[in-house]
């Protein structure tokens, strides 16, 4: 990997807006704006936030065998995802370890697979290596495709002002093709904040135009740009996994609590035997959510104790702005995974009391029913 950081087309806009830029997965990205990560987080929960997530990569998968290819390389039953629907899935190794987590967007004659920035080259090589004899067109369209996320309870009203798509008719995880601020776009009712919202794919040449049009359309509703720090605390409150933390090559989707993205009934796929074994026998370790009883901020890598023994490690920890609590996720042996179990988190050499709680920490209004 080169030393030079990549910049999105909005880099100069972020700098002018006073954003703090940090390295993330080889990209120079805004971690926060002068608003600050706590207010950015709260704004997404109460109104809406706009995220530059162009560091993420996208592959275009087409051809007569596109579905067969997807059925083989990822865990979800893509035949259940109709045209104009999106679904979450995982790429797994033969041993069940996770290559990456992906979102699939089904369009009339192709699919878009959105993947993590850090895994772009790894995923591309891994996917291309598994095309085999299948009649598939596989293109990395990351450079020419821009990606932004508009998230929050006001996202629908804001986006409706600048799109010709009837958003009322677009269900959660639905996909539509239309225009945004006059620019042809694919709109996915998807996101990574636990809030209702959209992810928008469009020509990278239009990045600034679309970004500014969205901010202007959302101004009356309090829309603000949000950085990666808020994105991380938002996804963590929703207990959505982050590659390199909750999921990686040593963790399988069943242990990670991602069974909803694995469909054994679809026939063979890479990693199926290993995953089925874990599923039937029950995982040895499970991803749990916990909240601190003693005060303290748990962080990635901190040790978890139970019954006086070291039993696991924190994958993500944070102050949760919505609940006002210090919370986190960790892998612990299945015997300690029950809700209500007392554990300790070692913070600066001192064990501090914590308790396993139900996932997620935050359920958005649109899902509370």
């Amino acid at each position, binding site marked *: 990997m080169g030393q030079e950081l990549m910049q999105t087309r909005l880099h100069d806009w972020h700098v002018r807006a006073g954003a703090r830029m940090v390295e993330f997965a080889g990209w120079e990205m805004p971690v*926060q704006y002068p608003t600050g*990560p*706590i*207010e950015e987080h709260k704004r997404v929960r109460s109104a809406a936030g706009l995220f530059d997530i162009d560091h993420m990569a996208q592959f275009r998968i087409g051809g007569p065998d596109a579905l067969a290819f997807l059925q083989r390389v990822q865990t979800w039953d893509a035949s259940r995802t109709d045209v104009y629907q999106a679904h979450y899935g995982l790429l797994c190794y033969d041993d069940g370890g996770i290559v990456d987590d992906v979102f699939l967007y089904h369009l009339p004659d192709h699919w878009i697979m959105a993947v993590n920035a850090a895994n772009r080259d790894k995923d591309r090589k891994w996917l291309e290596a598994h095309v085999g004899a299948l009649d598939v067109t596989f293109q990395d369209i990351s450079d020419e495709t821009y990606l932004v996320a508009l998230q929050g309870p006001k996202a629908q009203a804001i986006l409706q002002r600048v799109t010709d798509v009837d958003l009322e008719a677009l269900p959660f995880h639905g996909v539509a093709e239309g225009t945004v601020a006059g620019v042809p776009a694919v709109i996915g009712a998807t996101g990574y904040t636990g809030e209702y919202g959209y992810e928008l794919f469009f020509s990278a040449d239009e990045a600034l135009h679309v970004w500014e049009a969205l901010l202007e359309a959302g101004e009356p509703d309090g829309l603000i740009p949000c950085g990666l720090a808020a994105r991380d605390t938002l996804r963590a409150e929703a207990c959505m996994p982050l590659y390199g933390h909750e999921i990686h090559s040593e963790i399988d989707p069943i242990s990670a609590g991602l069974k909803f993205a694995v469909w054994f009934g679809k026939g063979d796929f890479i990693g199926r035997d290993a995953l089925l074994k874990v599923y039937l026998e029950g995982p040895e370790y499970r991803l749990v959510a916990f909240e601190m009883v003693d005060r303290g901020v748990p962080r990635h890598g901190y040790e978890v104790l139970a019954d006086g023994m070291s039993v696991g490690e924190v994958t993500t920890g*944070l102050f949760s702005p919505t609940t006002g609590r210090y919370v986190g996720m960790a892998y612990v042996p299945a015997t300690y995974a029950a809700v209500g179990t007392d554990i300790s988190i070692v913070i600066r050499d001192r064990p501090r009391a914590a308790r396993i709680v139900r996932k997620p920490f935050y359920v958005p209004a649109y899902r509370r029913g």
Partner: protein
Amino acid sequence: MKYEFDPTVRYAKTHEWARVEGDEAVVGISDYAQDALSDVVYVELPEVGSTVQQGEQCAVVESVKAAEDVYAPVSGEVIAVNEALDETPELVNEDPYGKAWFFRVKLSDPGELDNLMDVDEYREYVESEAE
């Protein structure tokens, strides 16, 4: 310069301040330090009765993204800590020289104050660091 500087305190190079009141001093972190940290979500203070040493780690302040050590600008016995920071750590961002004092010490060596910068020296120091 966008930072606030308090002329009534003396500063350490690690961006803590000490405000001398008789034979005691109140300790906190500077406006520059809180701005660099961004949103503070947790402060861990020394225990009342413990002893802190100038230049040694005495507290921890955590922002959304990171935990940073706080070094004692002066030595002495901790005689009070600011318990308001337990429930409202954001005071560190809002009022770093006032409501967000960290703790109060009984000075064991007032001569140490010479090792700290006055406000003009600190302003210059921050300007040179910011470049």
